[in-house]
């Protein structure tokens, strides 16, 4: 999947996307992070052929999302942020209607539907009205609808918004199992840092309609300024020779000396730690304690998007409200 210079202007005024470039390799899990109004949903709606970009082009497996939209739609599945199942029929019936819309042959329908329900852990609730489902079950049913057609690319817009931690975990475990089985690509929008960190191979950060940065979760966190190794030593004078030696190690960026403590800023803490301890030992310095502090994605987000993610949290409860309101309706 790739995009070049995507621009989307709503009603000639609001610039939701401002020249977005994107590259997602097949079979990868790709997370798009961004604050409220950054353009995440707009980008996803363009990629899923719902709306046309004002300018720029995007391709999915070589098909242009505007010109070959019918072909693109055959390869993708999409789970919108809002609730997207009919609540006044059963879970099985929801899948049945989608199976018919997608033209799955009658002979395969029942088996595929039962598989999808089984995969999402909904078999025993298949014939209950969706109205009686919990939020997590509804989300799993939506995922089941999306997986029914065995898509090459799965688009998920805030897949676990408003769910409790155990329901979030359940959704993700089942998504990852599907991805593994069918080698599918997953593209998701989220503002849960831990989710992007845990499940994605690559993260892109979007702010005000522009891609700010992208990379693996590890490389992004490192780019914030490296990781910190704190070492507490036995109560004895640290000799300058040892400090010089550590400073000279490859991957070490900086060294801050405290009382009986050294803080070392490094590129990659796991690889530097053994070398540092060796150097200290070679200079007869006894190590009492060693710890690693890594920047988290929130630090990355702050640096590139300019806000803390909590700033967007007001929106989570808002969406949760909308979802429950829609359920009642």
């Amino acid at each position: 999947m790739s995009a070049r210079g995507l621009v989307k202007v709503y009603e000639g005024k609001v610039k939701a996307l401002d020249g977005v470039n994107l590259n997602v390799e097949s079979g990868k899990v790709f997370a798009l992070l961004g604050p409220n109004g950054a353009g995440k949903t707009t980008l996803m709606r363009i990629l899923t052929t719902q709306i046309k970009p004002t300018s720029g082009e995007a391709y999915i497996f070589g098909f242009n999302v505007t010109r070959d939209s019918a072909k693109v739609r055959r390869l993708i599945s999409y789970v919108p942020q809002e609730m997207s199942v009919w609540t006044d029929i059963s879970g099985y019936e929801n899948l049945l209607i989608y199976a018919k819309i997608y033209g799955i042959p009658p002979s395969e329908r029942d088996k595929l539907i039962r598989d999808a329900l089984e995969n999402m852990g909904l078999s025993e609730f298949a014939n209950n009205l969706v109205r009686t489902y919990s939020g997590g079950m509804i989300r799993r049913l939506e995922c089941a609808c999306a997986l029914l057609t065995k898509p090459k690319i799965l688009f998920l817009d805030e897949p676990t918004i408003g769910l409790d931690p155990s329901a979030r975990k359940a959704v993700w475990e089942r998504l990852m199992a599907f991805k593994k089985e069918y080698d599918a690509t997953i593209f998701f929008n989220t503002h849960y840092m831990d989710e992007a960190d845990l499940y994605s191979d690559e993260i892109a950060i979007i702010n005000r309609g522009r891609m700010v940065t992208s990379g693996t979760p590890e490389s992004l966190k490192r780019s914030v300024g490296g990781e910190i190794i704190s070492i507490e030593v036995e109560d004895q004078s640290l000799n300058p020779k040892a400090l010089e030696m550590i400073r000279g190690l490859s991957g070490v960026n900086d060294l801050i000396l405290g009382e009986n403590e050294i803080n070392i800023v490094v590129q990659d803490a796991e690889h530097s730690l053994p070398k540092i301890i060796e150097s200290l030992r070679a200079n007869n310095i006894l190590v009492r304690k060693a710890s690693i502090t890594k920047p988290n994605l929130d630090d990355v987000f702050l640096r590139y998007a300019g806000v803390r993610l909590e700033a967007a949290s007001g929106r989570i409860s808002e969406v949760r409200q909308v979802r429950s309101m829609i359920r009642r309706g």
Partner: protein
Amino acid sequence: MNGFMRNMLAMIELEMRRLRHDRTELYTRAIQPILWIAVFGPIMGSVRAIPTGGIPYTDYITPGALIQSTTFVSIFYGLTIVWERESGILKKLLTSPASRYSIVVGRAMASGVRAIFQALIVIPVALLIGVKFTPNIIHFILALMIIFISSGGFAATSILIASFMKTRERFMGIGQALTMPLFFTSNALYPIAIMPWIMQCIAHFNPMSYIVDAVRSLMITGDLTSLPIDLAAILAFDAVMFIIASASFKRIIE
């Protein structure tokens, strides 16, 4: 075309499954037409003020009351689309292989399912009250088909309204403001010939007049001379509404 029919059938099936789980709306919406037939009809009929061409007044207004209720069902069907827009269903349908046109027409025709079931509740009640239908099963089936097809046109009208009125409250308002005038400027309760001149003009452009006339000639009078004109008008109405609704459908999703 294959995919088009498939989507339409899937939408119709969806509507039937919904009805299987919950039929409350059908029953509550049946109250109004039954009141027209059971109360208004006999009382107005006793006055003998309206020329009906020799048929009892209650029989005369039965098709009108029936069409009024099925039309209301279709017009308020747009609410479903507004709801599906507020939820993510419409977005998801747009990313399916179904074409936009087939989503609009499929959804619109699905409202015909509700209309038919509505008719199947009202007609037996009318029979009990003593309305004399033409004893012809082919006429009866044809009349149901006309109700089904014309519901599609009104539901498309309602999708069109939904694309402008994006909230439920606004939609309810305009739906109410549209349905009663449609009813009163048609031949549902009185022949067009006795209307004031200006209303006659409106009645000739009111699709409900043609639908009522078609169903009345099939179910009550048995006189089919105007049926071809009625059918042509209904089909033209459907086609125009399908095209306009599909074109403005973009507005709903943006």
